[in-house]
């Protein structure tokens, strides 16, 4: 298997790093060699955060070059756009429906891209676009913070549908890994959110 390259992006405080930690451990639990790379530091203060995860039989570099990302998982819409240059033409985009307004927009220097602009930019790169209402689904379950689990649920289903990993990674591996790496008191909630994400993905379908 040629390495499968994930890029997870979001805004500081959204839990992007935790999600990529889970993704790395899921790959390892599935018996793959895994490397993950992230950037800490200044990005914690509300800045843009990114993390690379690679699964494969043999993986050398922990970071993925521009044009080589197979799966972009974006927890925020503007951040999804920012990293599109990292994708190749057949890549899969999974984007959480959340907008966090940066101060560059508040001060009036920039405008936040409109929905049509965003969709046009996505589809100029790839036809495989999945939008997930993470905050909505998690909110209905009672904890907006579980949005990332919703997104991971959508990711798990998308990997299976697109046959990006053979043999496919079982739900069991996903759920056990999530349970191991998140606080016990949120276990049921995260599980429900994950399942919600899996279903929502089929509802939204693929553009």
């Amino acid at each position, binding site marked *: 298997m040629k390495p499968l390259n994930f890029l997870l992006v979001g805004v500081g405080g959204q839990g992007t790093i935790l999600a990529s930690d889970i993704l790395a451990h899921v790959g390892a639990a599935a018996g793959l060699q895994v*490397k993950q790379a*992230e*950037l800490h530091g200044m990005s914690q*203060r509300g800045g843009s955060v990114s993390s690379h995860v690679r699964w494969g039989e043999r993986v050398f570099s922990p*970071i993925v070059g*521009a044009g080589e990302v197979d799966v972009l998982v974006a927890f925020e819409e503007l951040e999804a756009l920012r990293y599109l240059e*990292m994708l190749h033409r057949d890549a899969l985009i999974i984007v959480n429906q959340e907008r966090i307004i940066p101060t*560059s927009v508040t001060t009036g220097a920039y405008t936040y*891209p409109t929905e049509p602009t965003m969709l046009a930019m996505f589809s100029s790169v790839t036809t495989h676009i999945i939008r997930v209402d993470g905050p909505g689904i998690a909110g209905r379950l009672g904890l907006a913070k579980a949005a990332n689990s919703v997104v991971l649920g959508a990711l798990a289903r998308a990997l299976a549908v697109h046959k990006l990993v053979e043999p496919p990674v079982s739900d069991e591996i996903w759920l056990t890994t999530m349970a191991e790496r998140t606080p016990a008191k949120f276990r049921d909630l995260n599980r429900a959110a994950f399942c919600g994400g899996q279903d929502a993905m089929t509802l939204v379908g693929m553009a």
Partner: protein
Amino acid sequence: MKQLLSGNAALARGAWEAGAVVAAGYPGTPSTEILEHFARYPGVYAEWSPNEKVALDVAIGAAYAGKRAIATMKHVGLNVAADAFMYVAMTGIEGGLVIISADDPAMHSSQNEQDNRMYAKFARIPCLEPASSQAAKDQMLDAFAISEQFDTPVLLRVTTRICHSTSEVILGDPPPRTGLGDEAPQTPRFPRNPGKYVMVPGNAVKRHPIIEERLRRLAAFAETYPGNVIVPGSSGLGIITAGISYQYAREVFPDAAILHLGMSWPLPADLIRNFAESVNRLIVMEELDPFIEEGVRLLGVTVASDHPEAPRKWVEGKNIFPIIGEFSPRIIREHAITAGLLPTSAHVATPDLMSSTLPPRPPVLCAGCPHRSSFYLLHKLKVPVNGDIGCYSLGFAPPLSAMHTLGCMGAGISVAHGASKAGSPERHVAVIGDSTFFHSGIPALLNVVYHHSPVVTIILDNRVTAMTGHQGTPATGDTLQPGQTHTDPSTGQPTLIAIEPIVRALGIQHVQTLDAFAVDEIEATLRDFLQLDGPSVLIALQPCALETSGRARWRPLEVVADQCNGCTLCFRLGCPAILKSDELDAHTQRPRASIDPAQCTGCEVCSQICPRNAISFRDDALSLATAESTEVRR
């Protein structure tokens, strides 16, 4: 057992498996988590020292006392610790000593990208460069063995992509605990060996030949060090590489022969010469400085050309790959294509987008950050501000735009003093964080007092080292391992080092500790201080907004719509919770402000500066909230 570990966690594990019992460091990205992980192992002592020089001296003391010890720091931290680094290279040690320098190519979170392998050469000590988490752990054990075998400190140099990358590690077992406390075997008597440990000139002169000889022996050791590995290839291309670049070399050049140097100083001359004889083009692939490349050139190594008559070729390196920033497989590939090492078909296309037009999202002071008010006022007062390093460095950025110099930790106060002594016609304000004050601000402030200049110093006391992830400071009682400070038996309280008494003891007469959210008081005090002929200090005190203990007090404020006329003053605070609403003021046609309740903490700085009282205060917000909930109940 296998486990996914970050490079930093692996370094900590390696130190523990090696039986290290003392660790000291000062936080700094990307090194911070090494000590945080190490501190959790049983039977060890680990501390956040006030700065890197103190940390290294602490580790040296433990190593002199016969125990294995580590000191951790980011690359610029080694500048602070350089004096200690140089003397311990001269004295050697009793127990193994490993100094970990975490370098930051690309300056993801640093003020420069210095290549600290230079320090190993400078001090004539060995430098190990792990290329993965597994190597980070294993080479930590190697480093201790080398340290004790050769009576030398060892520099273990890692970079951001090693520290903050995760990969699988096969764990080993720690030795039976030779730790501290009751179960520790008898600690050997502290050495009485002045010829080795008292570096007065007469003794130091005798040590110098010993360390030159040590370096020669280390170079011979490097020839057979198992961390220096040749990966055979078939293409005639030979690559010498170290650290993370090794991974990129394997990925981009699967057919090349690779000499992977796990130990990048001193260099194994014969190993390199023999490797060069086996290839017809020799390239060094290393981030930042041409450190190995220059070493290979100095060895006079050349490779045979394809034609027997053609002259032999020198090693290549920085003529192909950048000296600036970090590498990635893509950067390696693109430069290799340009140099004819790879065909143009190896180019990977990227989507062509106008992403440069997207709104940037630079880091900002958080909503509710206690540093904001000071910078807002400094901007208003139009004074030159000499800054320092921490979250508060963000005060330089628009719209606050209130920091005019920033170089290294502890610089601001003395730069302000120097500018004042140079006859700068304006009063200078130095701003410094609480952790930075303990790190290197105290001697600077002492100097301002003793040599008397009218510098106004603002100590931004947010009760924590926020930038690097909320480590305690000596003022907080919060230590790396629980309960490390002395507890006063009469009060049962930990001994805290309060900032204001230190400032007074230094001889500053004009000292005020104020609530960092009390905008008017701070402004009045600053205006007073700026009139004085001598030094003054304002301590702006409020815990960091991210402190979880403070969250219970968060209470979002609201904009009273009819009162806001879109004057934009509150936008000048650069608070991420203050948004431009879609509503225009009928008269001014400017967008009114709105407050994001998810982000606002209720610090009230905006409420205080609003000229039209259009932003509620906490109590108003409370009454609004109660009114609403009463409404709902009805």
